[in-house]
């Protein structure tokens, strides 16, 4: 009998595939069900936001950067605003810093909820998506409350916030924070000890600590390998050093470890949110008092000539930022979200560059899934929590 002849098969996955979180295309070379090689193709969502930003005034860039990582809109704008404020040398009042912390943590919860829902759905727990989206709806309602816009509120501005907190904000946030820990228990009840879920995730897609450093992965993926790096602890900003919270880590580095790290992060975020909302007075200062950047209050615009001129200048010409460069990192839901900006001293940015955690995670994907089964690719993509808008910008 002749020897069995084997050959590899090339399979195209995506770009329109429900488990690729947008438009990621993978060309897989398979030997039976075992992956021989993977070639990711990205760029389907490249919209040239960094180039467009160079044509806009500093403040006008905020709605643009929010559309990069569309699941964590406000962590983009927070990183950008903080970078510009660094160049301007602006210090934020304590209340603004506390509100920003609260918003950043609520944004992390919203992003993790989408991750949890889609990740679990892709490996079989379909009902998880509905429970996660239901909770996220409450967070989107809070966004709607503060800015009238659910996805991209543009509430964080250079120089502070857009306006003061609306009436009913504290009630809405407290209601959510009281309800949510019980919901996390419910999520865990569905998944953490679920035999099917654990068999799909344990020992799958292992990333070692050394690999994570080599590929530049920081954030939840690296924390699942035992690295306790978190920007909030290592390089505190917005007064995170005054909050009481832990950095959850795991050591296995597999899909299940990343799941446990993110679930624990949600619980820590709730802790931070509770401390932040207790510090925030219902009304008070919502921007710094730098007249270069922050327009005067409306009643002064109507009654004082100087205020009217200042208002007109800010809204027609914008403000200038001293020449120089700054890179400001924050801990976004997917890892270190940094903004690198270069100013030439005019009212428009010379260069804006976002560090995209998803970009580096997809780069590392071939090394992670190689030698595994094709069904595990879906689990690994889900666990790295990539957002193609963030990756392609």
């Amino acid at each position: 009998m002749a020897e069995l002849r084997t050959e590899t098969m090339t399979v195209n996955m995506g770009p329109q595939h429900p488990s690729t979180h947008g438009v990621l295309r993978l060309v897989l070379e398979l030997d039976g069900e075992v992956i021989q090689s993977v070639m990711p193709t990205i760029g389907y969502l490249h919209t040239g936001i960094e180039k467009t930003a160079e044509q806009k005034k500093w403040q006008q860039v905020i709605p643009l950067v929010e559309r990069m990582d569309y699941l964590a809109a406000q962590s983009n704008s927070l990183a950008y605003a903080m970078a510009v404020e660094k160049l301007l040398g602006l210090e934020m009042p304590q209340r603004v810093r506390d509100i920003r912390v609260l918003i950043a943590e609520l944004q992390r919860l919203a992003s993790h909820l989408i991750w949890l829902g889609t990740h679990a759905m892709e490996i079989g727990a379909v009902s998880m998506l509905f429970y996660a989206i239901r909770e996220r709806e409450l967070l989107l309602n809070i966004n709607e409350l503060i800015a009238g816009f659910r996805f991209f509120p543009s509430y964080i501005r250079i120089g502070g916030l857009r306006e003061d907190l609306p009436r009913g904000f504290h009630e809405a946030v407290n209601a959510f924070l009281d309800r949510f820990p019980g919901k996390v228990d419910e999520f865990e009840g569905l998944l953490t000890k679920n035999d099917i879920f654990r068999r799909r995730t344990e020992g799958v897609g292992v990333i070692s600590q050394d690999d994570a450093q080599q590929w530049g992965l920081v954030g939840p993926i690296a924390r699942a390998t035992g690295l306790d790096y978190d920007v909030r602890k290592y390089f505190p900003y917005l007064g995170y050093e005054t909050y009481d919270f832990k950095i959850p880590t795991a050591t296995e580095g597999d899909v299940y470890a990343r799941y446990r790290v993110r679930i624990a992060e949600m619980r820590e975020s709730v802790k931070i949110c509770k401390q932040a909302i207790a510090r925030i007075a219902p009304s008070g200062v919502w921007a710094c008092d730098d007249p270069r950047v922050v327009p005067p209050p409306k009643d002064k615009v109507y009654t004082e000539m100087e205020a009217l001129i200042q208002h007109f200048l800010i809204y027609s010409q914008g403000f200038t930022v001293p020449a120089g460069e700054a890179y400001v990192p924050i801990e976004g839901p997917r890892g270190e979200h940094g903004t690198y900006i270069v100013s030439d001293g005019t009212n428009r940015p010379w260069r804006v560059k976002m560090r995209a955690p998803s970009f580096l995670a997809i780069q590392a994907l071939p090394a992670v899934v190689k030698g595994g089964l094709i069904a595990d690719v879906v689990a690994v993509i889900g666990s790295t929590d990539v957002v193609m808008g963030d990756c392609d910008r």
Partner: protein
Amino acid sequence: MTASEIIDRLRPLVPGASFEAADSVDFATIYVTPEVLVDTCRALRDADALRFSTLIEVTAADYFPREPRFEVVYHLLSIANRLRLRIKVRVADGAQLPTVQGVWRGAGWLEREVWDMFGIVFDGHGDLRRLLMPEDWEGHPARKDYPVQIRKSAQTYEPMEVSEAEFRANIVRDRAGRN
């Protein structure tokens, strides 16, 4: 650690190199010349007092019409020592930079994106293909002399027509090639 302290530690490790400290508002920034870039990066990664084990980002900025035109920027992170560092390299249009993939594997796509967007060639990279732009794109969009809005007619491709005879011949040839 300030830029001059880092340079003092680097000097004995990278002989013959000239470093230059730059002003910055956030963290230490040093200018490095392309010839010693890889050696400097390796020293920054391996020296005990530095340990910049993570490459956070590689990007560039186009200062057209200034000469040399580009500055390639590397952001490094030392988790062990809680340090950040920015390395900058001045590059003229058409000049090449050595790749730092040998030091941090994650540099591959980051450098590829810089090539895609700015047209800066990384010597020894081996995979400088389009990453974010389509494969047949002309020009490098992030350059300052590249227009923000251009009109490009949509490209369409005729569906490939293969006769049955050609199809069978292809299969036979493929199988012969694999065996």
